[in-house]
């Protein structure tokens, strides 16, 4: 081996930050946030140590599924501009290492969550990891334009798991309302991204709706899903996890979200080219705030209940 190749090998030595990036930290943040809200919105209190440990193990499980997703999708990540700098395509971590880490952390997180919270929470985490890796990453993502719709379920499970950590119960309406909020939010969020990151998905041959059914159909779908989401989000205000704070937040946010979806629906490609997809980008940014604010409102309703203010 020459000095030059030695230097290149050392340059690509993985650091702790590379392993952290492999676990999709942004997705982990969303998982932790929605799971904490799900846990705190439950009518049963959780010991802080048990709650902290359980959420940590849930986050590790989410990170493990991220690593497995990056292992499987390394070929398309290398093609897409948005993902080309991820640790595997960047040559920092080998696909095999990512797979080993993902499998090991999946097993560890499921086992530890089962012990710290309950078996049902552990089972749900195992199912979520499986759903994200096998049906979504390995099958749907490359075979159907509905990939985002069905795969979105994987991202919607954390508040349900948070609820189960607190209560050990699954057959109640409220956690599934939080699940439905994320599930219905995911398609318009990702389709807006696909509208302005269009070349990425084309190049990687990922059958996003924009590629298979065209951009007009994608705009129609964004509006359709947003209408359903608005009904669901406002309707949630009148359930046990809702209240005045949630209702006011939902009314304002959903009016803005619906307006954004309507604006996207009205536009054509020529107008978009002139302003570099400004409306689509704005809608995408709004979608991030939308979900965050709705879950903060659910959290506030739960947090204020002991003081006689939250809820109805």
């Amino acid at each position: 081996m020459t000095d030059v190749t030695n230097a290149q090998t050392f340059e690509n030595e993985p650091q702790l930050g590379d392993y952290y990036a492999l676990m999709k930290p942004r997705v982990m943040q969303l998982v932790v946030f929605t799971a904490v809200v799900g846990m705190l919105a439950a009518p049963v209190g959780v010991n802080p140590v048990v709650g902290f440990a359980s959420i940590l193990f849930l986050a590790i499980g989410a990170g493990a599924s991220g690593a497995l997703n990056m292992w499987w999708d390394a070929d398309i990540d290398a093609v897409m501009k948005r993902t080309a700098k991820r640790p595997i395509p960047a040559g920092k971590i080998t696909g095999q290492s990512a797979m080993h880490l993902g499998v090991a952390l999946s097993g560890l997180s499921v086992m530890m969550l089962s012990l710290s919270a309950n078996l049902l929470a552990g089972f749900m985490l195992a199912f979520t990891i499986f759903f994200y890796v096998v049906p979504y990453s390995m099958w749907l993502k490359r075979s159907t334009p509905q990939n985002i719709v069905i795969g979105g379920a994987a991202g919607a499970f954390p508040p349900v798991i948070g609820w189960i950590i607190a209560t050990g119960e699954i057959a109640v309406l409220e956690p599934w309302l939080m699940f439905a909020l994320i599930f219905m939010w995911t398609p318009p969020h990702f389709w807006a991204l696909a509208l302005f990151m269009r070349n990425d998905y084309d190049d990687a041959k990922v059958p996003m709706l924009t590629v298979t059914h065209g951009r007009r159909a994608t705009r129609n779908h964004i509006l359709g899903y947003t209408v359903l989401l608005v009904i669901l989000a406002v309707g949630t205000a009148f359930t046990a996890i809702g209240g005045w704070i949630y209702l006011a937040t939902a009314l304002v946010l959903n009016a803005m979200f619906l307006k954004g979806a309507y604006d996207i629906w009205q536009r054509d490609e020529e107008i978009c080219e002139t302003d570099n997809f400004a409306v689509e980008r704005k809608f995408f940014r709004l979608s991030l705030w939308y979900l965050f604010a709705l879950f903060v409102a659910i959290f506030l309703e739960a947090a204020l209940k002991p003081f006689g203010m939250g809820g109805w």
Partner: protein
Amino acid sequence: MALRPEHEIHGRRKSLNIGVGLMLGSFVLLIMVLTFTKITSPEFQIPASQANGVGGQTPTGGTD
């Protein structure tokens, strides 16, 4: 003069090893705190299969 000159890669590997070590240490600490929390909780119940050995001896019969 040191027998093995320090290369930049050694420093980088050291920081990775320290990071992994800290994480493993934190994990052990977390398990300890979690175990302590669980067994001191009012809801904690000793599994039936192990309860006999804790509370006292179960009569096994005999002549005395």
